């Protein structure tokens, strides 16, 4: 067919729906819930039902957390759930990143389940709202340092440990927890478990006060002798030392493009806003004239938009590879590294260009500049993405290139 970097027509309806939701639902309540941190945006419940309906009728297309499962296909070129998922995430985050993170049944835990669950688990957890619990007080980026334990006892695993920075941890129905089944066996022994809310021994201890994404709750959850059915272990229960971390890390190949998409959507919001404000100030952008003969603000816009385009296309590339069953760890990390860092740069620069209008709470620019920062941190910081890219390119192990 030939090289084409436009998205297919069949996703148009989905993209438009997500855009309508952003405009009509997210934006009008964005500021309200940014101020009312920890208050659940009740408007999202109705929306969640709508999205469930969209997913049920969506066929190959899907919204965010649904669209990360790889399907075998004999088609030569597939534009499937990974791509449509990220496209709808982009549009929704153009509305509000924190709302997207708070969408019932669209959590990162759902993405993990969709990525590694077997068919039985997939059916069983189909309607759960799953948060993701990896980080502990003692580690962040070093995911292999998990100290939470899961000990098999009859038909149950007994989980102990403390998890922090659990997005939607307060509101979700269940949590996908990373815990070690044998701490002497290192990272290969780290497995993920679905723990449903209400399971005795699981307590949400507190919610964080944050720089941004304040409409999204970020929880600390403690597990004390928490008994979980052994069928809730996602993936293989065997500790395969040679396979190492691959099982649980595979989740990231699917979630990182989604986070990259969040940054793309948030940055686009800021770009659209600043374009309007610049126009009011008499500055327009000319794509044909050299940047250095235009207004400095127009030149800044061109530079931001170029960076945005790179982040957007890297994100699409990563999802396209996933849709076509091509290994995409490298591209997923490249997408997240680029999209997230330009997301921060763009939103901050737009505040600067807008001046007091951007810095004050009158517009949402200052909010987007706070929201965007988390996207360069969670699901692997900028530095972790660069490490992954570098190790791949240089063919280095984590012991060589630390």
């Amino acid at each position, binding site marked *: 067919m*030939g090289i084409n*970097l436009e998205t297919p027509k069949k996703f148009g*309806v989905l993209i*438009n729906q997500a*855009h309508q939701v952003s405009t009509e639902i997210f934006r009008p309540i964005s500021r309200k819930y940014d101020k009312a941190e920890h208050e659940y945006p009740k408007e999202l419940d109705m929306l969640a039902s709508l999205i469930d309906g969209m997913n049920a009728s969506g066929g190959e297309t899907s919204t965010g957390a649904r669209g990360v499962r790889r399907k075998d296909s004999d088609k030569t070129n597939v*534009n499937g759930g990974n791509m449509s998922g990220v496209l709808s995430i982009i549009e929704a985050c153009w509305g509000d990143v924190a709302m997207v993170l708070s969408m019932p049944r669209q959590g990162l835990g759902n993405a993990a389940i969709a990525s590694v669950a077997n068919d039985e688990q997939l059916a069983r957890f189909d309607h759960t709202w799953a948060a993701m619990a990896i980080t502990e007080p003692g580690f962040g980026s070093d995911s292999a340092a998990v100290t939470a334990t899961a000990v098999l006892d009859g038909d149950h695993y007994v989980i102990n440990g403390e998890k922090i920075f659990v997005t939607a941890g307060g509101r979700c129905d269940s949590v996908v927890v990373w815990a070690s089944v044998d701490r002497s066996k290192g990272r290969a022994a780290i497995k993920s478990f679905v723990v449903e809310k209400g399971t005795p021994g699981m307590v949400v201890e507190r919610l964080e006060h944050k720089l941004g994404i304040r409409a999204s709750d970020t929880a600390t959850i403690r597990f004390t002798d928490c008994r979980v059915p052994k069928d809730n272990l996602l993936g293989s229960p065997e500790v395969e030392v040679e396979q190492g971390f691959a099982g649980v890390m595979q989740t990231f190949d699917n979630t990182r493009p989604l986070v990259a998409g969040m940054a793309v959507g948030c940055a686009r919001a800021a770009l659209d806003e600043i374009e309007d404000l610049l126009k009011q100030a008499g500055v327009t952008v000319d794509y044909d004239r050299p940047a250095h003969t235009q207004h400095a603000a127009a030149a800044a816009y061109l530079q931001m938009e170029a*960076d945005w*385009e790179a982040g957007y296309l*890297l994100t699409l590339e990563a999802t396209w590879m996933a849709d076509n069953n091509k290994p995409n760890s490298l591209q997923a990390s490249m997408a997240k590294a680029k999209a997230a860092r330009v997301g921060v740069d763009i939103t901050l620069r737009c505040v600067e260009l807008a001046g007091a209008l951007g810095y004050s709470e009158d517009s949402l620019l200052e909010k987007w500049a706070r929201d965007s920062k988390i996207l360069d941190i969670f699901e692997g910081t900028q530095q972790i993405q660069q490490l992954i890219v570098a190790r791949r390119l240089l063919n280095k192990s984590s012991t060589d290139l630390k």
Partner: protein
Amino acid sequence: MSGRNKRGRDAMGVGLAALNRLASAGAIDKLRLRKPVERAVYEGAKAGFRSVGAANRTFAKVQGRGKAERPGKAGGRDLFDLTPTEEQQMIVGATREFSAEQIRPVAADANESCETPAELLKRSVSELGVTIVGVPESLGGMGSERSATTSALVAEALAHGDMGIAVACLAPAGVSSALTLWGDDAQQATYLPSFVGDDVPAAALAIVEPRPLFDAFQLKTKASRTPSGYVLDGVKSLVPRAASAELFIVAAALDGKATLFIVESSTKGISVESEPAMGLRAASTGRLILESVTVPLSAKLGDADDYTECVRLSRIAWSALACGTGQAVLDYVIPYVNERQAFGEPISHRQAVAFMVANIAIELEGARLTMLRAASRAEQGQPYAREAALARKLSSDYGMQIGSSGVQLLGGHGYVKEHPVERWYRDLRAVGVMEGVVLV
């Protein structure tokens, strides 16, 4: 999302249409069969050298047949796809091989002598057919359909060998593409046969002028209408193979609007001065001076809109060249930082080094995808002004950053001519400076 976020975008994309691709095997065969034919060797540019334009052939005016031939546009594609077609894979494979085996080994010498070997230029025509790829079959070219992505992939693969040599090879193709896209039937019949034959003339599409803040849409070179034609006055800069070029396409302002003119190098009032630059030295860059150059009415090539398209297509081509050279940097530094030892281990074990390599790869891929999107939109007949501008911005800024990182990673060794990275550093600066010359 094509740029600004607008509502009601469900009409995005274009309908699936059958693609009318040219028969790839036939095209390749055609290339292989082409025999190299001897051609006069051209004088390399030497500092201070100034002469009248080269004049080794006359282009006999040919009457048109009433209708210009235009390459077909590719049909609209629906699915996102980064896989080149089989035909493109073959062409790119052959070009990469040519680049690795014939360009890279002579690149350092070509840089020193400010000249691409004539033999190599000939082989780029006989083995790769660089000037006939976009020319319709009815005019002796390779196919009825022009593919901007194929041209971009070829430019990229050539620049992986050497950007200066790539520019020297592609300069005549820039002219033949311009004639194909915007020439009328008489212009095509007069000039195109030379470009599809064995003896392809040196030729160049000249836009750049020597002044700060140059803007391709605010030209100092003027064209004035006379009863019988136009008079051109002005100076064009960084024109590849200027001293040996037999045909120029020159951009000049006509009634304030930038327009292209076909100018034969033997025309009175044309002189050429060598203009060696920081990089692209293998392209033998020169200054083209036009002093009361009289050309006939038939010299005007296309209109102002065509000129705008020309500028955009050339920016995509320069972006593709930057991607090729950027990839060369990446491919070169990876083994170097893995082998180079410091403090008892390879320097690639240090994040400060490893992250530079990672960033080269990340920015290169981002620029490359943006360039491909621009080329693909152009070839499908979609608007692409925005995408071309963004591709130019990324490949200029990050291309230069990549060139600089390449030298930095090799340290003192990067600064000396024993390694090619210093040449790539110099070449990559051209991407933000150049306009015209190459087209996708």
